[in-house]
């Protein structure tokens, strides 16, 4: 029994700001003070507040230390752990209210969250199976194997209203029952951990912070549909998640929670890992299965759906990581409990990865039906650097943007689809007035052009042409009629592509056109970028009233485009200017503007 537990985030965000080293030093320092029998250092998964990393929490007080550096460690150990005095200057500011110190769960970032999928992330040590078991881990599997029939399991999942969290929103229970209906000598349960949307990292956090929750859910799914083999297809870009999964699978096998005759019920189930190799299209189900089989990850037409003919031609179910992370809780607490959270047609919670120009970048889990305003302004702390909210982008390269007029929309699958955006896997990128919507559309298109597998002409050539048209517009060469051509090509690609990648690739263009058409018009007709983001359409200008003639800009200009005498107002020669922005960075008087 330890009197204090020091939790250090070992997620990818905090690891890249050196949390592994911080953990080592903490242990060292604690030992030096002779506290190693009383104080325990635990490496956990992600706490969610990645922008404040590396994060250290000390229990039982619940003191939340943010942006901890190696130099701070002796002070934390000496003051807090030895003398019991909380080091106030290192605490997360929002936990301090005058003299009182709040618990982390009372801060705006956490208060509105409801953690089901992330329940154990940042709480347990993901590399110790006993910690998961202590949090009711594997008791859902035990309950299913000893008390429930497979069809009862499926019924509970159906009744819960759980829908696929990977983006499509297909009812999970229905998917399972389709696979259960098909008789076959072998069936498979697969997990889609090929989280490819730029800006989304909830699956990674679940796998890093609570890998057993996914293993347990897959075993439950296996029992429900009659499968004995599972595969987790995970992207190789997530080395920490891969390692923790390997450890988790090994530990589960050792305790007999995977393998032969689990819980003495006669049920066999085992799981293998398969690593992706960096193909976004492999997030599409038929491509993913092709990739597990060792082929090029190209999609194939459906039907037959994987529930009928999937991996190696056998009935297969494929669910996303976050979907699986909900399963054990639904089994333990019942369908009614899960039903009670969320909106009419979208039940439960959704994890969002907040990114872009927002104060608290990180991971949040909120009930379905939470408004965008609550997420951005209350939980996310508002737009960073005092900017003004312009739009939020959801669903990555397949999704769309939500303009400020929809800030009060209740977020669920159907509402987002209705306004031309989509839930997607849950990436939520906030953009402010300095973001150009045409430029953003071009960015996503460049991504899809790279990632199109090349099977369908509409997608392979269509997205390329679409990108070229956007480049023409942002390059200041747009002409009358270009916007209409863009639109018709978008619809052509949507209608003629085989898989979701092609069908949704034009969404970023269509949704920015829908809400920010005036920006496209400004680019095409006035050759002007209102946000000042498109390099070729911007100019730099010296403000005569602010310039004092210090010559710093002229001395730093790499191409000698700035002229002017000492103590006199300077000029930029736009014929020479390469728009690198060095002058603006160097000016101490804010006398240079980009327009």
């Amino acid at each position, binding site marked *: 029994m330890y009197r204090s537990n020091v939790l250090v985030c070992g997620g*990818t*965000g905090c690891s*890249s*700001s050196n949390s592994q080293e911080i953990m080592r030093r903490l242990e060292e320092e604690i030992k030096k003070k002779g506290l190693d029998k009383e104080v325990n250092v635990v490496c956990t998964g992600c706490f969610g507040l*990645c*922008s*404040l*990393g590396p994060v250290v929490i000390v229990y039982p007080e619940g003191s939340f230390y943010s942006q901890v550096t190696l130099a701070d460690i002796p002070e934390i150990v000496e003051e807090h752990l030895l003398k019991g005095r909380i080091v106030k200057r290192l605490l997360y500011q929002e936990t301090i209210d005058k003299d009182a110190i709040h618990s982390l769960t009372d801060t705006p970032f956490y208060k509105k969250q409801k953690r089901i999928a992330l329940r154990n992330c940042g709480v347990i040590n993901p590399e110790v199976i006993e910690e998961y078991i202590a949090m009711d881990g594997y008791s859902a599997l035990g309950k299913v194997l000893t008390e429930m029939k497979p069809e009862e399991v499926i019924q509970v999942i159906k009744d819960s209203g759980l829908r696929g969290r990977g983006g499509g929103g297909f009812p999970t229970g229905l998917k399972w029952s389709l696979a259960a209906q098909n008789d076959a000598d072998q069936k498979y349960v697969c997990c889609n951990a090929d989280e*490819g*949307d*730029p*800006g*989304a*990292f909830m699956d*990674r956090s679940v796998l890093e912070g609570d890998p057993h929750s996914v293993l347990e859910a897959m075993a439950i799914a296996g029992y429900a549909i009659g499968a004995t083999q599972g595969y987790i297809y995970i992207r*190789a*870009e*997530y080395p920490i998640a891969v390692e923790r999964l390997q450890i988790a699978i090994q530990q589960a096998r050792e305790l007999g929670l995977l393998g032969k005759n689990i819980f003495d019920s006669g049920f066999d189930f085992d799981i293998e890992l*398969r*690593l*992706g*190799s*960096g*193909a*976004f299209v492999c997030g599409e189900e038929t491509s993913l299965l092709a*990739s*597990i*089989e*060792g*082929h*090029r*990850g190209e999609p194939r037409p459906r039907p037959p759906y994987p529930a009928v003919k999937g991996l*190696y031609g056998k009935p297969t179910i494929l669910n996303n990581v976050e979907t699986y992370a909900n399963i054990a809780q639904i089994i333990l607490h019942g369908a009614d409990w899960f039903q009670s959270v969320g909106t009419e047609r979208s039940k439960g919670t959704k994890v969002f*990865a907040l*990114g*872009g*120009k927002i104060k608290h*970048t*990180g991971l949040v889990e909120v009930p379905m039906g939470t408004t965008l305003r609550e997420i951005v302004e209350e939980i996310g702390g508002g737009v960073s650097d005092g900017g003004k909210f312009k739009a939020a*982008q959801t669903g*990555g390269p397949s999704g769309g943007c939500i303009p400020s007029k929809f800030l009060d929309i209740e977020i669920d699958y159907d509402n987002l689809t209705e306004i031309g955006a989509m839930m997607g896997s849950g*990436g939520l*990128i906030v*953009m402010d007035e300095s*973001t150009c919507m045409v430029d*953003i559309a071009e*960015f996503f298109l460049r991504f899809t052009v*790279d*990632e199109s*597998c090349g099977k369908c002409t509409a997608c392979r050539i269509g997205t390329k042409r679409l990108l070229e048209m956007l480049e023409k517009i942002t390059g200041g060469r747009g002409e009358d009629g270009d916007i209409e051509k863009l639109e018709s090509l978008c619809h052509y690609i949507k209608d003629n592509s085989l898989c979701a990648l092609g069908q949704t690739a034009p969404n970023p263009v269509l949704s920015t056109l829908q809400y920010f058409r005036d920006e496209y018009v400004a680019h095409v007709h006035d050759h002007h970028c209102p946000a000042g983001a498109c390099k070729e359409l911007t100019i730099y200008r010296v403000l005569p009233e602010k310039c004092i003639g210090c010559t710093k800009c002229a001395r730093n200009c790499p191409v000698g485009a700035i002229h002017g005498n000492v103590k006199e107002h300077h000029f930029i020669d736009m014929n020479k200017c390469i728009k690198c922005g060095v002058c603006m*960075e160097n000016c101490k008087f804010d006398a240079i503007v980009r327009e």
Partner: protein
Amino acid sequence: MQKRISTLPFQGTKEQQEQLFKVIDENGGKNGSVMPILQKAQEIYGYLPIEVQTMIAEKMDVPLEEIYGVSTFYSLFALTPKGKYNVSVCMGTACYVKGAADVLGKICEVLGIQPEECTQDGKFSITECRCIGACGLAPVMTVNDDVYGRVSVSEVEDILSKYE
């Protein structure tokens, strides 16, 4: 995405070949073993030149075009060698919004090569990578295992000079 194919001569060793054959012997018979074997092969050689693909195809008794098809499909399979220091810039949305493209441009300028290329002396190579999930630190660049967050264009030269 078009893959760049190496023009530098192949310099595989006997030990590497033995390692590769051992991997194939261990995994070869299983269903869907092509991808794991290619991943291991890349770990052994650092990249997958046609010479390595040919060895795998012959040893596994799989047509070379199938191995070639898989190697060229996935972006993590490299057909050019990596430098001693691989500089990687995250091009995820969050990083892009915060100026990753300018950082990448500066790196290319300093090293005199384009992404997916390796300098003649074999020291540096550049890759653009997909979101590495450190969005809170955007824009992010990495040099091998060292991560640099909130990078500005003016810091690029200093960072690279540490690896001379």
